[in-house]
């Protein structure tokens, strides 16, 4: 295909801006592999993945408890925040009077800007004693789930609302003129129409949930054991790094890079997986 020279030149103008991003991602992977290699050599690759305890000082480096903790907390938080977020977005976009909708969406935008450490402190001083009344000490999987769900909610509402907003005006007018009950229009037309957008919001939130560190570190207790129930303490992969990295040396430090590497692999897998699923979803709609 023939393109004018100026257009081809543009390609080379913009290319350098892409390179740092690509190099950074590849660089992080290489860096994590190199840094975690001494631990793999010292403990053996399998010792990271067989169930057991995490005690690098005592030569036990199972990451299974952290993997379980990270997944349990992230998934539960999504299960809570996705339905809540979709319903809230639906209310703002389709049901609320304009001034309520504006006020609410400003508030939601505001909550999205609260730093995670604030959520963490709030969780520790308010939520932990509350959960502690049901089952002491209160620093637990369920506390982490609730805090995380609250953190994910604002961006989910904003994303899904945008998706609803883009639902074509003609579709809305058609549903009104067809005499559909507003709720029927929402559940039968607008909701299915936003399926793709909701799935995107869910994936993005899942990625954020997997990477959330400080808020969870403050409310989950951080004991590296497999959770027995929702009141058990969990430690996430990120908290594992944050808690011990500043203080670790040698193989211990290297083992922490292994948890970083594992986190990168999990996040990458989730992102690629969502692309594949998203693509399939798009094809099925056509």
């Amino acid at each position, binding site marked *: 295909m023939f393109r004018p020279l100026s257009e081809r030149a543009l390609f080379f103008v913009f290319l350098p801006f892409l390179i740092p991003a690509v190099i950074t991602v590849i660089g992080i992977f290489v860096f994590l592999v190199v840094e975690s290699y001494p631990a793999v050599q010292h403990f053996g690759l399998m010792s990271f993945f067989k169930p057991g305890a995490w005690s690098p000082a005592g030569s036990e480096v199972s990451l299974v408890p952290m993997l379980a903790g990270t997944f349990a907390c992230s998934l539960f938080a999504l299960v809570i925040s996705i339905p809540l977020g979709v319903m809230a977005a639906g209310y703002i976009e389709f049901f609320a009077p304009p001034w309520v909708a504006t006020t609410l969406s400003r508030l939601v935008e505001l909550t999205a800007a609260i730093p995670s450490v604030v959520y963490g402190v709030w969780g520790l001083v308010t939520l932990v*004693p509350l959960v502690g009344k049901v089952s002491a000490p209160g620093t637990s999987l369920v506390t982490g789930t609730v805090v995380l769900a609250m953190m994910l909610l604002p961006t989910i509402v904003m994303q899904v609302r945008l998706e609803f907003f883009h639902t074509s005006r003609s579709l809305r007018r058609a549903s009104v003129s067809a005499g559909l009950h507003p709720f029927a229009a929402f559940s039968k037309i607008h909701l299915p129409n936003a399926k793709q957008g909701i799935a995107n919001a869910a994936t993005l939130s899942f990625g954020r949930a997997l990477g959330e560190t400080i808020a969870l570190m403050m409310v989950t207790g951080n004991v590296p054991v497999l959770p027995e129930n929702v009141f058990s303490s969990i430690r996430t992969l990120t908290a594992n790094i944050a*808690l011990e990295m500043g203080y670790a040396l040698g193989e211990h430090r290297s083992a922490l890079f292994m948890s970083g590497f594992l986190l990168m692999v999990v996040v990458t897998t989730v992102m690629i997986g969502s692309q594949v699923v998203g693509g399939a979803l798009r094809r099925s709609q056509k």
Partner: protein
Amino acid sequence: MKLAVLATLFTGVFLAQSASAWIFGSSEKNTEEAQRIRITGSSTIAPVMLEISDAYMRSHPNTRIDIETGGSSRGLADAKMKRSQMGMVSRAKRTEDGSVVFAEIAKDGLAVIVHKSNPLSNISTDQLKSIYRGSVQNWNEVGAKSEQITVVSKADGRSTLEVFLAYTGLKSKEIQPDVIIGDNQQAIKTVESVPSSIGYVSIGSAIVSQEKGARIKLLQLDGVSATPENVGNGHYKLSRSLNIVYSGELDEASKKFLNHLNSSEARAVIRRMSFVPTPQ
């Protein structure tokens, strides 16, 4: 995610720096007169050093002191590798530390803390051991009201944990924690939020927080109160030494600053932070 963002930032800063160095020439020439001292390490010592160095920089405009935290292990490693002039290490010298020079500036005790509502006022070393080992699980077994004990401990590698282990003779794996936390502030916040808990933090941090109204109580250990005085005269045994470490020969500016740490001004700051300055 966070890691990725951080790494990207670092790369960005690095690129920007090398670019500016390339364009404007090395920036070091301009700052030749100003002497930079980089001090890294223990987050227990850092607040004291920050305060002392702020005053020092005001009276010595040619000296620039950068204090960074990251834990005792980092302070030691940085000093060894000469990535910093001096390191802050909150434990005594061990044989594996080799040729690194340790200069003790102060002592700090570890206070055993419980929630303010806990009726207990004294704990024995044996009781402390049993609680952390998990053989005592209820407060009524040590003379308080019947309630499940919540054991708060620190993450592997923290120097407070190491001091606690050295004192009790327990191994890291023997401890049966209900909550694991990172730094002193988080420990205090956790004990405040969970009335049934027990934890250990730097006496300095505990007293400062208590003065600010934290709902915690410092227990006597074997009948000795956890106070800076008792740490200083050696009656309170659960304590550690706070050190400035360096390897090889120090440059003039660093030497001067190290000497300054022994001045009455600096010692007053140390005392104000509830640490015990080392006698000269």
